[in-house]
């Protein structure tokens, strides 16, 4: 696949300091989820700032969509529209006195018409689940809400690539999970996402590709499993091995029969222990739990209460920012609000049923994920689509293709 962004031999140094970047070559493809991981001062932020032309490298070239980036005003505007940059501190990024005005900042400067501005702001706020906050001044918002506004301000310009510098550094754990969930959602909509972080756990489970940095150089890159299994490299980059991998290695060294694939989630490790080690599937007495999936865009609050009342379930999972907003509005307290699909599969394997409330394309994603899991592990966890009339246990039409190869 043709690279979207290509960096070749970048060099950059700040005044009177050791080189911040040296010999950086990197290739970013469309639709990737990339995490730049490194200790403080490894050059992650500097590298990200070169992507949208804020920092001009001393040497080397940046090629975006086949064309080298040039640094005149018009080209810079073009590249900054396509590569959106979200600052670490939302207070730096939020410029305007109200949420609406801030999100509209980009579109207005891109000379959209009034109607287009209104539309793009509405869409962006909808996307990050911040509708109804339009007239609020930013100092009234919580850290997570500010972050969402900052992301909305970038989304309103409809970029192809989202670059986020330490997206979770100022958030509480639940807030971080929400933001990462949102980034997954945006990635599903086709955006390429690049983040920097020093949170290894987060990078390990979220990213498609990890790029390890140390002292302005890229010291390794690959899938999370590859990048984090090289202990020497991890030590050099002043990071640590993710807990899951450590657990895996410890189990392995104690003679646990393991497959070649390294675990990335709790689900993976449970599967390894249950499936590969015991050799048999421990099936609870009542069989697998069912995963029910509902599209809240097509329901009202009372519909959902009806469904919750008549569908037997042990836990409710809410996935995606819009579904979370609805859940809050309707007064449901979700039991699971991040890594929802994995956790529901885990529950189902333990004989418990769950309901996942989500929106749009993520409904299909649940079906996809569970089906793939079923095929790979020879399981038959049932997934059902929640419908209003309760008579049809339907499958959304766009998920039908999955069932042809299915075996339950």
């Amino acid at each position, binding site marked *: 696949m043709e690279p979207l962004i290509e960096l070749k031999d970048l060099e950059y140094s700040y005044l009177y300091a050791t080189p911040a970047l040296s010999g950086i070559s990197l290739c970013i493809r469309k639709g990737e989820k990339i995490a730049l991981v490194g200790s403080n001062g490894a050059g992650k932020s500097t590298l990200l700032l070169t992507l949208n032309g804020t920092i001009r490298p001393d040497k080397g070239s940046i090629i975006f969509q086949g064309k080298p980036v040039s640094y005149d005003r018009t080209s810079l505007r073009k590249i900054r529209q396509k590569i959106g940059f979200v600052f670490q501190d939302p207070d730096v990024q939020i410029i305007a006195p*109200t949420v609406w005005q801030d999100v509209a900042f980009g579109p207005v400067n891109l000379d959209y018409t009034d109607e287009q501005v209104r539309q793009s702001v509405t869409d962006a706020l909808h996307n990050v689940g911040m509708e109804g906050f339009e007239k609020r001044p930013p*100092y009234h918002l919580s850290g997570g809400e500010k972050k969402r506004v900052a992301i909305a301000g970038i989304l309103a310009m409809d970029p192809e690539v989202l670059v986020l510098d330490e997206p979770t550094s100022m958030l509480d754990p639940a807030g971080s999970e929400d933001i990462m969930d949102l980034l997954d959602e945006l990635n599903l909509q086709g955006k390429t996402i690049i983040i920097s972080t020093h949170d290894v756990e987060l990078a390990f489970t979220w990213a498609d590709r990890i790029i390890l940095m140390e002292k302005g150089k890229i010291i390794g890159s690959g899938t999370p499993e590859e990048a984090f299994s090289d202990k020497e490299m991890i030590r050099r980059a002043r990071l640590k091995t993710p807990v899951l991998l450590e657990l895996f290695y410890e189990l392995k060294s104690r003679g646990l029969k393991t497959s070649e694939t390294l675990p990335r989630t709790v689900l993976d490790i449970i599967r390894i222990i249950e499936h590969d080690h015991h050799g048999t599937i421990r099936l609870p007495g009542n069989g697998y739990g069912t995963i029910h999936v509902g599209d809240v865009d097509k329901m009202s609050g009372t519909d959902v209460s009806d469904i919750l009342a008549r569908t037997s379930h042990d836990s409710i999972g809410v996935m995606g920012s819009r579904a979370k907003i609805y859940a809050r509005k309707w007064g449901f307290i979700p039991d699971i609000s991040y890594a929802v699909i994995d956790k529901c599969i885990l529950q189902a394997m333990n004989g418990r049923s769950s309901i996942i409330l989500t929106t749009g394309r993520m409904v299909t994603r649940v079906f996809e994920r569970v089906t793939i899991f079923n095929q790979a592990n020879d399981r038959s966890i049932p997934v059902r689509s929640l419908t209003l009339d309760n008579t049809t246990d339907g499958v959304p039409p766009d998920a039908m293709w999955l069932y042809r190869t299915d075996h339950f």
Partner: protein
Amino acid sequence: MIGHDFLEETAHHNALLQVHPFTKLFLGIGSIILVLLTPNYIVPCFLAITLSIIIIVLAKINLKFYLKLLGIPLSFAMLSALVIIFLSEGVTEIWYVQLFPWLTLAATSESLNQGLHIFSRIFGGMCALFFISLTTPMTDLFGIMKKLKIPELFIDLSMIIYRYIFIFMEKASQIFLAQKMRLGYTRPGEAVRSYSMLFGSIFITSWDAGEDLINAMDGRCYNGKHAKITSYNPVEWRTLSAVMIYLFIITGMILWTSG
């Protein structure tokens, strides 16, 4: 501490938030202009009392908070009025005191009148000003400024200033707390040193914030434009006419009392 952010906070939660800002500005600014035209203290006092009633009853501002707020300018006004009463000239002496052989403080009925007049003008004017600031958040004023064709540059600058005041105040209070915790303000000399350090670091912070702001704006394709909200609830003619009738009554009172 009554901070400016507390004022804004109150404005964002007042009961007249949904009224069109133009109506509120009309009442506030109209009252200020009329106060300046009053011949004696009767009309300004009437204005101050009625506006306070509007602020407390209609806008539902906490009475205690309002009185505390009003206390700040009024204590200054009181002092200035006292000075005027004793120092300005007049014919009919009411009361006097000889402080030193060469200094006599005397209050005349003319100076008393003048002092009372100035005090009541300040009182009325402050009430009108507080009416605006307690019922109309700054964010609403920016749109009105645009509608009134005030130069964009001025509005943009005030929007950026408004946005950053809160960030700097936050920074300043953090530094102040950190200094106080390390006994920075225990002695007068220490306090002067601590204050100078506080202002120094705020200056550096604002310099940095300026550079960050440029980067943030450039990162979003800044081209000299800032979005403004200009859509409000429609002007209610009933409210607006009530405001007009009120201002007419005040005008009538001014004409009548000036004889």
